[in-house]
């Protein structure tokens, strides 16, 4: 391992790489900054593609296998591009006993999409969450970053129809 960080150029000219570089710089290009860096990549680009994993591996001087291992170990990271809109349904215990499963089925049926997948037209990604901590408002969901509580199947479909 070289004593000084080797400057690695980002794969493209995209300005968003600047944010990623900044995160790595803030942590002094230490290998333990990998999770933080991957967070920044995902925040900036929406998902982790092969190029970004290769870049992180080189820039932090970590084997690509290790980067891939981390990216696939944690549920938060996704290697596939997300749809235009994201609907997260919380499947925490409180939401589960209050009928989150039925919500999920309703959506899955209407849009023919399973949890963790995106519709064929790339419009909607359906995601499950372990617990978003809004247990007091169960069942809860997150629609494009906006948390909504006490959902019913009808509510949810109304919200989703707006995105069509």
């Amino acid at each position, binding site marked *: 391992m070289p004593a000084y960080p080797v400057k690695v150029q980002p794969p493209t000219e995209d300005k968003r790489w600047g944010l990623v570089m900044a995160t790595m710089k803030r942590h002094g290009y*230490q*290998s*333990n*900054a*990998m*999770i*933080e860096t*991957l*967070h920044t990549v995902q925040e900036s680009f929406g998902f982790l593609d092969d190029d970004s994993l290769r870049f992180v591996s080189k820039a932090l001087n*970590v084997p690509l296998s*290790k980067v891939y*291992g*981390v990216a696939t*170990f*944690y*549920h*938060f*990271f996704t290697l596939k591009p997300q749809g235009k809109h994201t609907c997260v349904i919380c*499947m*925490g*215990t*409180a939401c*589960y*006993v*209050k009928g989150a499963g039925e919500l999920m089925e309703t959506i899955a049926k209407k849009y023919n999409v399973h949890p963790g997948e995106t519709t064929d037209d790339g419009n909607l990604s359906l995601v499950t*969450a*372990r*617990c*978003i*901590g*809004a*247990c*007091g*408002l*169960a069942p*809860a969901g997150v629609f494009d970053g*906006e*948390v*909504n*509580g006490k959902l019913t199947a009808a509510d949810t479909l109304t919200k989703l129809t707006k995105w069509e």
Partner: protein
Amino acid sequence: MTLEELQEIKAGEELARSQKKKSIHVCVAAGCMSQNAEAVLNTIEGQLKEKGLAKDIDVKGVGCMGLCAAGPLVSIEPENRMFQEINQANAFLVTDNLEKGKKTTNDLASDSPFFKRQYKIVTENCGVINPERIEEYIAFDGYLGLYTVLHDLDQNEVVQNLIKSGLRGRGGGGYPTGLKWSTVAKAVGAKKYVICNADEGDPGAFMDRSVLESDPHRILEGMAIAAYAIGADEGFIYVRAEYPLAISRLKVAIKQAERKGLLGNNIFGTTFNFTISIRLGAGAFVCGEETALIASIEGGRGTPRPRPPYPAESGLWGKPTLINNVETFANIAPIIRKGAEWYASIGTETSKGTKVFALAGQVVNTGLIEVPMGMSLREIIFDIGGGIPGGRKFKAVQTGGPSGGCIPEEFLDIKVDYESLTKLGSIMGSGGMIVMDENSNMVDVARYFMEFCMSESCGKCVPCRVGTAQIYDILTKFAERRATEADLTLLEELCDVVRNTSLCGLGQSSPNPVLSTLKYFKHEYMERIQAEVNQE
């Protein structure tokens, strides 16, 4: 920062408060925030301005008031008058009824058992202070504990204080905190670390999130006191990426504390240095386990390793490391300020102090509560929680998340503490409490938790990786009424193997939901066997 400056800030805050006639508090923790609390805050501010009352009445966003089900919550201080379900359209109910005595449709009785039966230590500032202003935390004696420790106590005295207080780890294990501190304090090494475990992964638990969002400085102070006691100079808060609001408030709090010289070098003019940085989790339940958490902070996959050596001897980067849960750290400052004897006087023989529970599921008052140890489950669910909605019958309460168990009605009168819950086959856990009514199917519940453990198993050790999947398959057989007597025996055996041979706590405790439902609701399993026999 000196003591005088600290007192000056406190006096300044008190003066500012005395110049206002009233203050309106709007809950801006995640629960109410998701119901548009920020807009309510702005609307109320606007209406007061129109009425020309902006000078006399202070409006501020505060942390969690507890009763999340009725949010967004608004209260008028100092008379502690509360309103529920306030939105932009009915915000006038608050601003038109500032005088005492007038009844509105959205009044919330602040003297109801939900509020009266609680005992607040950890959440004493929740719903009272603006979490994004360090001055307000200082006004409620914040950082005084840290000052006392740095100037009046030596390291050993702090540890002895903690031991005397009887505080036990609030993350679930219940290991005596003082003992843990003294082990790390005695560990040899110039470099030590303090880690705050805010990876609240249990589904159905949101205590840590609420504390972080409502009173972040309390955690920083607790960590700083811990760092002084064990001789550390660097700390990490490992927080879930799923809690964006908590993360942003923590960042604000750390910056403010650094600017005021309460974190950094030469804190309170002493030789004590301490810095805190935030590390984000990425959605792995196993990272709540301490060795897995350390692996994750080091930047790798969060897989646990065998203990010993315990993190107290060899933790983060091989250095002695103290790991405590958010709620544990939140208890530290009050213990130092009010004394170990005071703390030890609350609670039961073996479990001291209070516990924060996240009450959720089929119960009227869902939300965050803090009660003294030793309160019975019946009091918690029926007095504070308000019972089961819709006149349905209580069936079971699930404590401790996927590592805990279900407790049936006949044990509702036991006193809640670490030992009593363990005896019933459940655990205290981090404090999630899910109430289930007669419509819940216990085999399904067990299967739900096993699905969770199966997909959250990190895959390092075989009993957990394979065992949880096998248990899940057998439970699916039960759910689909394909099970036989042999499956029941196999299920029991398998649970025994997974419990006794798994590497870390996740695997060891994963059979708990199955075992406890088998113990108390065996007929539900049997029904599914017999159904098949009858069909033949």
